[in-house]
């Protein structure tokens, strides 16, 4: 059992970042969230452990540095071994509570999940349409949109409000359709380079693709190359980014 007997203050909670195998190594330069940064520790139970740090529950949490610390630690651990990441903001009363209420009741589930994730990490691909390119496409494809554009040319916004709304509506719908198609094309092109995929909701109206992939860490170079090759086909049309390796945030779900 962890030594937490010296905990005096009721205001200190145990922030939980995620679950790892008990033999995972936390290097001394890993810093937790909070100000000053909490020291990251492992609370072990059998073959599994929780990644935790002390946090003052009376201090607001949610500064940019807190977010970076949460994801930075989990992603660093994910690069070394399997991790079950928790959503930001999980705090239990003490290290004992982590064992009694979290690790012990779910030991088998956590262990099985960690086992299944071994050697894999998450990669996120974000693509955003280049506005000028996608608008040009849409105007070329939709006679109605092209006509509306002519209709509003050189006329005031007030005088052409209806036409503008209709034009914007066509553009929005067209981008949604393109997003669906382009997402399918990308995932097809990457077949064989990932184990599972999740299509994320767009976070910007000009998002072209937003997907999370679970892939073997050993295949990372091949995945990078496949994404780069595919991105070249979209040169000037879509700006692509590949993020990772990350903890598998999109491939663990909790059922309350």
């Amino acid at each position, binding site marked *: 059992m962890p030594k937490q007997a010296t905990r005096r203050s009721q205001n200190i909670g145990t922030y939980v970042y*995620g679950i790892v195998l008990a033999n995972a190594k936390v290097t001394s*330069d890993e810093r937790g969230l909070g100000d000053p940064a909490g020291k990251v520790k492992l609370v072990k139970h059998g073959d599994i452990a929780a990644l935790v740090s002390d946090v003052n*529950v*009376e201090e*607001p949490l949610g500064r940019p540095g807190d*977010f970076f610390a949460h*994801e*930075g630690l989990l992603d660093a651990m994910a*690069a070394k071994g399997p991790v079950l*990441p928790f*959503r*930001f*903001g*999980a705090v239990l009363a003490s290290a004992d509570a982590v064992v009694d*209420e*979290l690790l012990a009741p*779910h030991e088998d*589930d956590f262990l099985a999940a960690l086992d*299944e994730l071994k050697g894999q990490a998450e*990669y996120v691909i*974000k693509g955003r349409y280049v506005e000028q390119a996608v*608008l*040009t496409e849409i*105007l*070329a494809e939709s006679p109605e949109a*092209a*006509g*509306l554009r*002519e209709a*509003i040319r050189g006329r005031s*916004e007030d005088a052409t409000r209806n*036409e503008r*709304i*209709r034009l*914007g509506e066509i*553009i*929005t719908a067209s981008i949604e359709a393109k997003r669906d198609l382009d997402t399918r094309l990308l995932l097809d092109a990457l077949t064989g380079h990932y*184990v*599972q995929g*999740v*299509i994320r*909701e*767009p976070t910007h109206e000009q998002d072209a693709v937003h997907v999370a992939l679970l892939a073997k860490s050993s295949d990372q170079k091949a995945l*990078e190359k496949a994404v*780069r090759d595919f*991105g070249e086909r979209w040169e*000037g049309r879509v*700006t*692509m*980014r590949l993020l*990772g*390796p*990350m903890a598998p*945030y*999109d*491939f*663990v*779900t*909790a059922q*309350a």
Partner: protein
Amino acid sequence: MSTSVQPAAAGQVGGRGPTGLADVIDTILDRGLVIDAYVRVSLVGIEILTIDARVVVASVDTYLRFAEAANRLDMTQSEKGLPDVIERAKGVPSQDKTKEVVQGVVEAAGDTLRELTEPKRDPAAAAAEPEAEVTVEREPKAAPRRKPRPKREEE
């Protein structure tokens, strides 16, 4: 304007990689395992974060912005043949149709507004739920599928 693949291993191992705050928030506020409210200690400051603000909703403002962007578009760089397309397509929608469209837009905007202004679920009620279960569920090993946006109830 070009494709930039940010090599994954370069930055993130052992530190914060090339991701910005938006990327991080996207990931850690919305995804990952959740400890049930029943066992969780409440934490000051987290409630101020609203995921809803990032949800992409089509609004009249969006439409107007796109229309203006299309208006400003420099067609000299456009593909050949586009002027022909425009010539063929000249004309505006009939008055009735425009009216219908605008009504539709207003209704949609109303729905959005309701969504955004809907009172948050009472945290006390959430905490009173008897279940204290945290179960792990792996995604089925199947073809990629559209994942429904997680409900924010446990917040």
